[in-house]
C-alpha cells in the first residue's frame, strides 16, 4: 500500500475480506502494525465512530476523495483517570447486566426473562428461569413449562408468561 493512498484525511470505500463494506476517513495508518484507523460518518464532532482495520484484511478499496485531517491535534486530550473510571464503571455495569443474561439461552428466552423481571423477582438457573425462588420455567418457556411454587404463584407466572408471549407476537407482527 502506497503511502500516498493512505494519507490522513482520505475518504476510502473499503471492502474487507470478511465481507464488510463501509466508507471512512483515514485518521491514521500505522505501517508497523498494519492498522488503519478510520473514522466513519461525516461529523467531526467530539464523538465519532472509529474503526481500526488491519490492512491485510482489506480486500479492495477505492479512494473517494481527499480531505483534511479529521483529527485536530490541538484538541487531543487524554485523561487517564477518567478513562480508568469509565472502564471500571463499564465493567461494573456489565457485571450487573450479566446477572440478568442467561447463558446458553435463546434471545426469545432472554426476552421472556426480561419481561418477567419487570414485575417479579427472577433469576437464571442455567437455562431455567426461576421466579420468586420457587417457580421454575424451563425451555421452551411455554405456559406448560411452568412448574413449582404454590398454585397461586404458579398461576401468576403462567399468566404473565402467556401475556408476554402474546405481546411478543403482536409486536413481532406489527413490526
Amino acid at each position: 500500500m502506497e503511502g500516498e493512498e493512505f494519507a490522513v484525511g482520505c475518504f476510502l470505500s473499503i471492502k474487507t475480506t470478511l465481507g464488510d463494506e463501509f466508507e471512512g476517513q483515514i485518521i491514521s495508518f500505522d505501517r508497523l502494525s498494519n492498522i488503519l484507523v478510520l473514522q466513519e460518518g461525516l461529523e467531526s464532532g467530539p464523538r465519532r465512530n472509529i474503526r481500526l482495520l488491519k490492512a491485510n484484511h482489506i480486500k479492495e478499496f477505492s479512494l473517494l476523495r481527499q480531505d483534511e485531517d479529521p483529527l485536530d491535534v490541538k484538541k487531543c486530550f487524554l485523561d487517564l483517570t477518567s478513562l480508568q473510571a469509565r472502564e471500571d464503571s463499564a465493567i461494573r455495569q456489565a457485571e450487573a447486566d450479566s446477572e440478568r443474561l442467561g447463558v446458553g439461552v435463546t434471545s426469545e428466552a432472554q426476552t421472556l426473562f426480561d419481561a418477567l423481571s419487570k414485575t417479579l423477582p427472577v433469576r437464571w438457573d442455567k437455562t431455567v428461569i426461576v421466579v420468586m425462588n420457587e417457580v421454575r420455567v424451563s425451555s421452551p418457556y411455554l405456559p406448560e413449562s411452568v412448574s413449582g411454587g404454590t398454585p397461586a404463584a404458579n398461576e401468576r407466572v403462567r399468566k404473565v408468561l402467556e401475556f408476554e408471549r402474546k405481546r411478543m407476537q403482536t409486536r413481532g407482527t406489527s413490526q
Partner: protein
Amino acid sequence: MNMQQVVFPKSSANGFGRQRGDREVGARLENKMQLGKSNQGRIQTTGALAVGKTVGNESFSRDRLVYLTTCLIGHPVEVHVKSGSIYTGIFHATDAENDFGIILKMARLIKDGTLCGYKATTEFVSKAPSKILIIPDKELVQIIAKDVAVTRDGFASEPQNEKHQEILIDSAISQSRHVEVERELEPWVPDEDDLQCPELENIFDGPWNRNWDQFETNQKLFGVKSTFNEELYTTKLERGPQTRELEKEAMRIAREIEGEDTQDLHLAEERGVDLHDDFDIDEEMRYSSVYRGRGVDDSGYEEDEDILLDSHNIETFGDSYDSLSRSTDGVRMPSSSSLVDDAPSSQAAISEDLNCSRPNDQARQLASELPSKSFSVSDSESRIRDKLLGEHGGSSDGNEFPEKQSPSEDLQLSKSVDSGSLLNDKIDGSDKARRSANPTNSPSNALSKVSEKPNSSGKLSEGPASSKATASGGFGLSPSSSMGSLSSEKSTLNPHAKEFKLNPNAKSFTPSQTPVRPLSPVSDGSFYYQTQMSPLPHMHMPVSFGIGPSFPGHQPVIFNPQVAPIQSPQAYFHPNGPQYGQQMVLGQRQVVYYQPEMQYKGRDY
C-alpha cells in the same frame, strides 16, 4: 481457535497495573500508558509540525494509533476476528509495544464465525461473558467503536454521563428499558352499568337517606352484628324541643361559610366553585398539598392569618421579649423538630437541636413568620388551624396559640439557622434576646454554629413533649422553604439583642466515646456536622427521642455515607470508584440525631 480466555482474579483498581500471571502483558500495558502519557505532548508537537498529510513519519502515525486506542479504553467495542466471529466487550488495553493484540473485558461472543450458515437471531444462543479476553494480533480483523470521544470536548461531556449512570434511578433498577413504548393514556370513564358510587360523605345520615346500609348487608352476608353507635364518634345531638331552631341556625351558618368567597383553589373545588378559568392550572396545582411558597397564589389567607397571629401575640404577651431568660440558643436543624421540652442547660448549643426556652411570644412571632413546614403538631394548634391554615399544610403546625401558654413555661424553641444567610433578620431578634437575657447561657459560639445537616431531624417529636410542642412546632426550615418571606415580615423581635454573627471559626464538637456527657456548658464547640467529616468516629447508637425528665446524655450520631467500603459478596466494589453500591447499603441505616440533654423544667400542660 486461538483465542485465549484468561480468567484473572478480580484485580483491584488499576487495570493497567500488573496482573497476576501475566506480567508481560502488564509490563506492556504500562509501557503503553507511558506512551500514552507522553504522547500527549508528542502528538501536539507532531501535529504542529506535520508536513502535508502524508504518513511518512512512522512515529507520527504510531502515536495516533496509540492515542486512538487509548481513547477506546473503557469503551464498548466490537471486535471482528479472522474466523468471522464477532466479540463485544469493554476495551481494556492493547499491546502497543508489539503488535497491537487487544484485551477486552467482559467480552461476549455475539456471532460465531465457525458455524456454517447463519443462524436466525431469535435462535442465537448466548454465551457467558468472559472476564478477560485476549485477542492476538493475528486474529484481529477490525475493531469497531461507536461514539468514541476523540477530542477534549468529547471527554468533557463524558464524565457527567458516567456519573449519572452510577446513580441508580428507579428506571435503571426496574430495568424498564425493556418496556416498550408508553401507551396513550386515556382518562377513566365508568362503564355504563356500574353502580353509582354510594355517597361516602354522609356517613352519619340516617339509612333512610341512602339506599345502602352497610350494617344490614354485613349482617346478612356474614352474620355480623354491628355495635356501631354514632354517638361514640361525634357529639351527641340533643334532640329536644330546640332541635328545629338549632338545625336552622346550623344550616344558616353552614351556608354562610360555604358561600364565602374564596380564592383558595382547594376550597373552591370543594364548594364547587370554579376558579380555574383565569389561569393555566394543572392537576398538580389543583390537588397537591405541597406548599410552594408565598408567591404561589394557592391560598388567599396568608396575609390575613399572619396579621391575625401577630395581633394575637401582641395581645397576649406584649412587645417585650425580656423574659427570654432561659434561652438556650437554638440553632436547629433545617427540618422539623418539634419543641424539645427539656431545659436548655446551656449544652444546647448544638446545631441540631438548639432549643431555646422562651415563652411563646417569640416563638409565635417567628412561627407566624415562618410559614414553612413544621411538624410537631400539638392539639392546641388545631384551633387556629382550621380556619386559617388549612391551605398551608405543614405550616400550620408552626403556629401556636395565644390563649394557651403562660409565660412561665419554657418552651423550647427550635429554630434552624441556615448558614446565617436566610434567617438573619429574624434570628437577630431572637438571638439578641437570648444573649442579653442569660449570662449563664452557653456562650456565643452556640449561635455561631450553623447547622448543615441536610436531612435531619425529621422526627424529633418527643412523646411527652409533643403537647408542648406547640410553640416551636417546627421551625423546620428546610433551606428551600420560603425563608425569603421572613424578610418581608415586620420584625417584632427584640431590637436590643445583639446581632447574630456567624463565627466560622467556632470549634466543632467531636463527640467522645463515653456515653455520659459532661454536664458543663458546652463550650467546646458546636455539634456541627458535615456529613463528610471523616475523622469522626463511627458511632451508630440508635437514639431515642422521647425526652423524659432524666434522659441521659447520649452520643451524637451522624449519618455518614463515607464509611469504609463494605465488601459485599455480590456487588463489585471498586475501591476508588464511586461508592454507589455502598450507599445503597447505608441507606438502610437509621438517620439519628443528636438530642441534647435538657433539664426538664416541668411545664405543665
